């Protein structure tokens, strides 16, 4: 008997919750981006775990996770480019100081 799928889902759930907490409470925008990456990684663990232990075990789960990794990499690159552009204009990386549309 091998490790039950519940263990992997639990690790993914804990990672997702930590990522969500970081994305909601941290002030540095780079760390917020990293927390979002952590949440995407938790989803990837679920996909790969279900590819082996799911209701219909199939290699499709691994391919889905590869697509997710690609989209997450593109998101990180564009997010960081926006961040650098914003730093040049506003001279800040703190998310609570980015209130240009609120004032």
């Amino acid at each position, binding site marked *: *008997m*091998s*490790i039950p799928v519940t*263990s*992997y*889902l*639990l*690790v993914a*759930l*804990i*990672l997702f*919750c*930590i990522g*969500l*907490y*970081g994305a*909601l*409470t*941290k*002030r*540095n925008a*780079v*760390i917020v*981006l*990293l927390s979002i990456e*952590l949440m995407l*990684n938790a989803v*990837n*663990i679920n996909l*790969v*775990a279900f*590819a*082996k*232990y*799911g*209701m219909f*075990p199939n*290699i499709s789960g*691994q*391919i889905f*996770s*590869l*697509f997710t*990794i*690609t989209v997450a*990499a*593109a*998101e*990180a*690159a*564009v997010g*960081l*480019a926006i*961040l*650098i*552009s914003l*730093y*040049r204009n506003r001279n800040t*990386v703190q998310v*609570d100081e980015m209130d240009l549309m609120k004032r």
Partner: protein
Amino acid sequence: MSGEFIAFFVLALLTIGGAVFMISFTRVVHMVVALAFTFLGIAGLYVLLEAEFVGVTQVLVYSGAISILMLFGIMLTRHDATEVTERKGPFKYIAFAGIAVFFIVAFLGIQSAHWGDQQADFTKQNNVKEIGIQLFTHYVIPFEAVSVLLLVALVGAIILAKKEAEDE
């Protein structure tokens, strides 16, 4: 059984420990390094789940590219940055309570759900070959779409980061 269990325990500890350190460190650079360990642990979990190709991709993309990209982002913006205070007011506690409720609900859902005992045996087949066959037959249109997406992200990121430099 025991070897696999020990490997899972160590990798899960590495993964969750890195994430917790990411939350609790105060210097931004330390946070990124802690998260690099998390990404390595996740790659180990993939190898344990017999997804070697995804594991190697994880090491290349996350532990390699994204960690270094984020370090560059910190160095280009404010490299002595410390997370002095988190957001003010009761927002932090409200967020924590909401996430705790979500965690409990999802935990009970995971515990009560039943997925059966079936298990795919990927050991007999070549993982990279199977992924390649699937990717170029069944998923060829999403594959091409993702290549266009990467090109758009590349061009967009360069334009976004470059435009303001010309004005100075």
